[in-house]
């Protein structure tokens, strides 16, 4: 088994000389990859419009320019496998079956959002059928959680693997270190993807780590580390698929570093004053993952303008109807806030001073005996 850190995968160098996992992808699957990337971008563009109309209640987080790393990696999983997305992984969630309507309702804080208005943006999941887990804001925390998720697969002998994303910044957390080390020691069937997009909020990677590259950390954990071009969706698929296959074979954890670039700010309000303008422009012009993949599809699969247009039209229609449905969705009822803290009791009693729960106040408190307890 490979223990050493491999040299970065160069898709052009590899292509034609080695059998790549993506060689087995059908034309239909290749178009699906494209559709998910385009759906991610178009959905985020719709969210920006809604944000500007103040219909998005909280912050808005974009993955512009990173669609390939999210989509290509999630595409390497089976439905039974569990994915743990981070804030730039809308595309991965869509691959796992999250719907634009869910995302829109969630951002708009609707009562029928996946978290019923409790959580924001793409902080939601589904472990019943689609198998992705909602993240929290505390970076790194999902790595030990996914160590445990995949440990359970190992203990039960289930043929399932896990994939967890982490940003370049979150590799600095204790939780990342403890989680990946635990998973490595236990040889959990886990793929850890470090999305190196150059910035953690305003902090450039060189202020985050003194390591030359994140795969160097794999050596210290005794796991395989591989690096790939995160803006080449097929290269992302290949490297993730190989890591997934290793995990499935019982060969433990792989650290995958995907090289990409964050073309928008940390969140929509961030003016990116710390990112050189020409740097952003260079990535947009020369290394947009969707533009690149369109060229590949045209050249290698003969995809026509008409085929692209049909995909775009279908996406536009999907997002249009999802937006209408989301806007028509009700906000939660205030007292819904009291539901779901515990399994038992499923609802906690309201506090007595609430006007909206007068009946509950009457039930919980007797004005005559208030301040005393007589059984």
């Amino acid at each position, binding site marked *: 088994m490979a223990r050493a850190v491999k040299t970065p995968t160069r898709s052009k160098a590899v292509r034609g000389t080695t059998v790549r996992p993506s060689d087995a992808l059908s034309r239909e699957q290749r178009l699906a990859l494209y559709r998910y990337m385009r759906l991610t971008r178009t959905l985020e563009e719709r969210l920006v419009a809604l944000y500007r109309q103040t219909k998005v209640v909280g912050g808005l987080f974009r993955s512009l320019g990173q669609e390939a790393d999210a989509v290509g990696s999630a595409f390497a999983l089976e439905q039974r496998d569990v994915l743990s997305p981070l804030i730039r992984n809308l595309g991965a969630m869509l691959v796992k079956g999250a719907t634009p309507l869910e995302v829109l309702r969630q951002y708009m804080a609707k*009562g029928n959002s996946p*978290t019923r208005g409790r959580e924001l943006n793409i902080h939601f999941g589904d472990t019943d059928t689609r198998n992705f887990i909602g993240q929290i804001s*505390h970076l790194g925390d999902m790595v030990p959680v996914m160590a445990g998720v995949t440990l359970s697969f190992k203990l039960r002998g289930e043929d399932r693997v896990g994939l967890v994303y982490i940003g370049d910044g979150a590799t*600095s957390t204790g939780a990342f270190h403890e989680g990946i080390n635990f998973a490595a020691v236990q040889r959990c069937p886990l793929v850890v993807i470090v999305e190196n997009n150059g910035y953690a*909020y305003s902090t450039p990677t060189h202020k*985050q780590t003194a390591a030359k590259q994140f795969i160097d950390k794999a050596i210290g954990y005794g796991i395989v580390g591989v690096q790939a071009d995160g803006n080449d969706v097929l290269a992302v698929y290949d490297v993730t698929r190989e890591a997934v296959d290793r995990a499935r074979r019982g060969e433990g954890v792989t650290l995958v570093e995907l090289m990409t670039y964050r073309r928008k700010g940390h969140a929509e309000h961030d003016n990116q004053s710390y990112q050189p303008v020409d740097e952003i422009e260079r990535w947009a012009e020369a290394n947009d993952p969707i533009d690149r993949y369109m060229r590949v599809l045209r050249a290698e699969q003969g995809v026509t303008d008409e085929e692209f247009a049909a995909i775009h039209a279908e996406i536009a229609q999907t997002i249009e109807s999802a937006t209408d449905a989301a806007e028509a969705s009700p906000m939660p*009822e*205030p007292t819904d806030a009291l539901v779901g803290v515990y399994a038992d009791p499923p609802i906690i009693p309201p506090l007595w001073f609430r006007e909206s729960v007068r009946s509950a106040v009457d039930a919980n408190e007797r004005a005559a005996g*208030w301040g005393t307890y007589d059984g």
Partner: protein
Amino acid sequence: MPTSVPLGGGRMMAKHGTEPNAPAAGSPVERTYLEAIRDAMAEEMERDPNVFLLGEDIGAFGGAFKVTDGLHARFGDSRVIDTPISEAGIVGAAAGAAHMGMRPIVELQFIDFISCAYDMLTNYVATARYRAFLPCPMVVRGPSGGYVRGGPFHSQNPEAAFLHTPGLKIVYPATAADAKGLMKAAIRDEDCVLFFEHKYLYRRIKEIMPVGDHVVPIGKARVAREGTDVSIVTYAATVWRALEAAEQLAAEDGISVEVIDLRSLLPLDDDAIVATVRKTNKLLIVHEDTRTGGIAGEITARVNETCFEWLDAPILRVTAADVPLPYSPPLEDYVLPQTSDIVRAVRRLAAY
């Protein structure tokens, strides 16, 4: 149904008539709550070369809320240090520097992330003086609190978790002048001070600052409004809701409400609490933190022990409900204390 955010309109002016250090003569400067914190740090950095800043994105970027804006340009890389995302590492490093005579100020990007440094703060920092005679003169500060649609991880009030830790001090100002004066006191303190900043107040509170070296002593409460019928003891953003309720109760009910702004939570100003209870004989405690295990329980116990016979009514609490703070506006407004809740509770006390 309390769905509006009563403070959402204009800015509020703090009243400082009851403060020991009222504005002296000189050119008055108006500052927001946020600018007051920045001013305090800058003045202390000028005064003491051992004061330096550590935190995520606090350098040229100026921090997520721009509290440190301009300080990197003014004081340079060595005194305004951008760190990796490593709260435990940052707090631990601050402790080590503090042992060596430095005066570090740690910014947590949101106070919600203080949980990542809980071990360092409670096991290491809080015990350092007692177990090893190691001083830890450091400040850990960060944007706290809700009413901003921040959801469960950008809205927390984790003060109660540290109230239970001997060795730490905790302050949580409500006014810009107190934010400045308490920050200066915290930096000069010989022990670790957790400095909670309410992000809802950052730019909504603007007031004329006291001139000169304005230091507010840690452990001293402030009478935010004088009254005779019912006392409200509170701190941070709910000070403003209590004041708003007091106005409404005076106008609509003729009830005279006294509002005590604790400012410091650890140590608590027992004298101020006892004084107001002896004055009005009725006590409402308001906090934005969740109810169970919140600081209101501790205050209730102290009043019970020290001045029970002065009470003419049971002590009441208006607090957040015991749930993680939800994101959606109807839910957040339902969970967090609103002015209407305070009005209701005071009316009940007044009628008792």
